[in-house]
C-alpha cells in the first residue's frame, strides 16, 4: 500500500475510497482498524473489534454516528467507541483528520 508517513499523521487514502455509511479496514501489526464514513461525510476510526466478543465492526451497518456489530447487534459509538444503550464496554477510538479529501490517521494508531 502506498501509505505515506507525514509528521505523526499517516495518509491512509481518499475519503472517496470509503462508501458513504460504510467502512474499510486498515491493517496494522497488532490487529485491524475500521475506518468509517458517515452519511454527513465525517470519518471515524476504531479498533476493528467489538468490546463484546470481538466482532469485526468494519462489517457492521453504519447509521447516524454509530455502527452495529454484525455478530450480536451491539451498537457502538463511532465518536467514542463506547457501547450504547444497556450494553457496557468500549473499543479504542483513534484520531483521524481529513485534509483535501485525504484521510489522515494518527500514527500512534498503527503503533508507528
Amino acid at each position, binding site marked *: 500500500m502506498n501509505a505515506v508517513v507525514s509528521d505523526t499523521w499517516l495518509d491512509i487514502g481518499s475519503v472517496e475510497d470509503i462508501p458513504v455509511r460504510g467502512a474499510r479496514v486498515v491493517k496494522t501489526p497488532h490487529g485491524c482498524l475500521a475506518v468509517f464514513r458517515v452519511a454527513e461525510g465525517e470519518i471515524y476510526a476504531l479498533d476493528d473489534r467489538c468490546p463484546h466478543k470481538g466482532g469485526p465492526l468494519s462489517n457492521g451497518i453504519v447509521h447516524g454516528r454509530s455502527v452495529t456489530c454484525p455478530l450480536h447487534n451491539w451498537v457502538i459509538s463511532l465518536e467514542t467507541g463506547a457501547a450504547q444503550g444497556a450494553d457496557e464496554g468500549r473499543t479504542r477510538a483513534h484520531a483521524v483528520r481529513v485534509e483535501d479529501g485525504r484521510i489522515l490517521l494518527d500514527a500512534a494508531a498503527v*503503533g508507528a
Partner: protein
Amino acid sequence: MTEKLVVIGAGMASGRALEHILETDPAKYDITLFGSEPRGNYNRIMLSPVLSGEKTFAEIVTHDTAWYEANGITTRFGEAVTQIDRDRKVVVSAGGETPYDKLLIATGSAPFIIPVQGKDLPGVIAFRDLEDVETMRAAAKPGAKAVVIGGGLLGLEAAAGLRMLGMEVTVLHLMGHLMERQLDEAAGYLLRKALTDRGIKVMCRASTAAILGEERVEGVMLEDNTGIEADLVVMAVGIRPETRLANDAGLEVGRGIVVDDHMVTSDPDILAVGECVEHNKQLFGLVAPLYDQAKVVANTLHGAGGAFMPKQTSTKLKVTGVDLFSAGDFAEGEGREDIVFRDPARGVYKRLVIENDRLIGAVMYGDTADGSWFFGLIRDGETISEMRDTLIFGPSYQGGAALDPMAAVAALPDEAEICGCNGVCKGKIVQAITEGGLTTLDEVKAVTKASSSCGTCTGLVEQVLAVTLGDDFVLPTVKPVCACTDLTHEDVRRLIKAQDLKSMPAVMQELGWKTTCGCHVCRPALNFYLLADWPDDYKDDYQSRFINERAHANIQKDGTFSVVPRMWGGVTTPAELRAIADAVEKYDVPLLKVTGGQRLDLLGVKKEDLPAMWADLNAAGLVSGHAYTKGLRTVKTCVGSDFCRFGTQDSTGLGIKLEKRLWGSWTPHKVKLAVSGCPRNCAEATCKDLGIVCVDSGYQIGVGGAAGMDLKATELLTTVASEEEAIEISVAFVQLYRENAKYLDRPYKWIAKVGLDWVKARVVDDLAERAALVARFDHSQTIYQKDPWAERAQGGSRHEFTPLADFSFKEAAE
C-alpha cells in the same frame, strides 16, 4: 311465530340496529337484508384512511359473510329495492317480490351533486362508498390533478387522502373559511395553513360555474372565470337523505323520512333509521345519533319502550397529523363571552364560548386532549363560574393537579363522554373493565364499542384502561419497526405502496423518521420493501444490507466466512466435487461439511480470499448458493421416479426446475423448499416454507411449515395434476409473500396473520391474480437473478474485500 323483517340498506345504521335486534331476541324475526352496494356493512367513516392507504378495506369491514350466516340473515347484496307496495306488504327488487311483516328503511343519504354543466362527465365523482374510493385511487397517479369541491369534513378528508397518494390537489370552498359549520375563522385559518403546508391548494369564496371536458373531465371553471385543470373532480358539498322509495310509497316525507320518537314512520309497520330520517325537523349526518336511533329501533321491534332523543354531537377531522375538535355553538352573539388561548409556536388555538356562566361551545386546534371534558360541560350545562379562571387549561388544572395526560383522564367524571361516535362515557368503560376483567383495547372495543367507529378516541380509551388498571395495563401490541419510527412494519409497507415512495430518503422524509439515516433494524427492512415493490425504480442500497448480503457469504464468530455453492436440487458432478476439493486445499479451509440442505459448506474462509475462491468455483460452473440471504436457499429433493422404486413423479427434476426459477430472488426471510417423490416424504417436504409431495395423481403443495425454533407441519394449499401448474403456484406463492409479509417473518408467521384462505384465494382460486403474481416475479428476476459471486470474482465491490491501507508488514520488514 317468527315474523318477517325486511331491511333496505346495509349501511352503518341498519348494521347497528341488526346487532341490537339479535342481542335482544335472535329468534323473533326472519331477516332479509337488501343493499345496493355489492357487500355488507362496513365502517363507512373509515373510507378516508382507506383512500389514503393507511388502512385496507378488509380492516374496516364490520359484518362479514360469516357473521350474516351465523345470524341466519338472508342477504341480497348488490340488489336495490325499487318499490315498496304497502297494501300487499311486499318490497320489489330485481329478484322479484319479498313479503314483510315489518319493514326497516335505512337507505342513508345520497351525495349532493351541484347542478352545473359537465357534472356527469367521467372523472366527476362523489365520496360516499367503496366504488368512489376505488375510482379515486385508480385516478391518483402522482402528478395528476384533482379538484375537490367542498371544504367541509368530507372534502378535506378526500383532499388529504388524494394528496397522500401524490396528486396535486386544489380544494374549492364556497365560504370564507374551511369547515365553517364546525370551526371559527381562527381555527379555519390554522387548518388551512396545515393543509397548505402539505401541498394542498385551498381556494375560499370559490364558486363553481361549470365542469369542463369533452370525453372526460379536464377542468373546473369558477364564476370569476378562473380555470383550474383537473383529471379528477370530487364533489363533497353535502348530502341529501335518500327518500325516493319512501316518497313513492306515499309515506310522510319532509327533508327526510319523518319518524316519531320510536323511529316509526307514518305507516305503523314501517320504521326508518339513519341519515334518511327526519326527527323533529332535524336531519343527521354523524353516526353518534344514528347509533342511538338503532337502539330505539330494536326496542320498538321487540315491543319495548324507549324514545329517541337527539344529543349534542362533536366533530373531529380524521386527517393524520391534524388535530381539531369542535362542539356546540360558537357563533358570536350578545351576552356571549369568549375565552381564547393561543400558542402560535405550537400551532395551538382554543376557544371557549360562555353564555350565562355555562359553556356552550368549544373549538380547539392543535391540542384536543381536553375535548371530551369540555364536551361534557357543554352537554350537561353545568355552571362553570367556580373554575372560570383556569377553565381553558382543562381538567388537569382544576384543583391544582399536575399537568399530566393521565391526570387529565383520571380527573374526568364518570359521565364524561369518551367515544363520541358510540356515546360511551368513562364510567361505562371503567365498569366494563373492572367487572369484565378486560385488559386490552380490543376487549374494551368488543364489549363497549368505544373507539370502534372513527377511532379518534383510541388514545383516550387506552388512557382510561391505564388509569383503571394501573400497572396491569400493558400498551397494545402494535410494535413499531424500531426506535426510528412509530409506524409498524405493516403500516410502512402499505404506505410505501400507497404513496409511491421509491427511495429510502423518500420513506424517511414522508413517514417522519426520527433519525437521520435509520438504523440496523429499519434499513434492511426498508431496503427489502422498496426493492420488492419497485424493482424497476429502486436502486438496491448496499450499505443497508447485513454483512452476509454484502460479502455474499456467512460471517462466522471469528470474523471468517463460510461459502456454500449451489447444488441444484442436491445433484452434483465429479467436476464440481473436484473444484470444491481443490478450493478447500488451496485456501486452507479448516472445515468442509455437508449441510442439511443437501450441499457442501466450506467454513472458515478469510474475507480477502473470497473473490479468488469464487473465481475458481465459477470456473467449474458453481454459483452462489445464497446460503446467507433472506432469499431462496435450497430445494431439497429425494431421488424420485428415475431410480427409486416407490417414486411416483420426477421429484428431483421438479426440484431443479423450481430452484432454477426461484434462485436469486430476495424475500422477507429465508425460503426453503423441498420436493418428495412419494408420501414416504424422504425430502421432509412437510416442514418447509413450501413443500411438494408427489402422489400418483399429481402434486400436493403445502405451505407454512417450520423446523426451527418453532416446529410446524405445512398446511395443504392445493393439489394439482401437472408439474407446470405446481411450479406456477409455487412462484405465485413466493411473490405474494414477497409483496406482503413483514421483513423477517417466515411464511408460516405471515400465513398465521393473513390466513391460509386469503393466500389460497389469490394463488389458487383467482387465476388472473396468480398469473399477475407470476409475471411480477419473473419481471423482478430479470433484474435480480444474477450470480453475485461472478460479479465480485470479476472485481465488483472491491472495497469490501481489500484493506484501505496495510501497515502490517512495515514493522516485520524493519
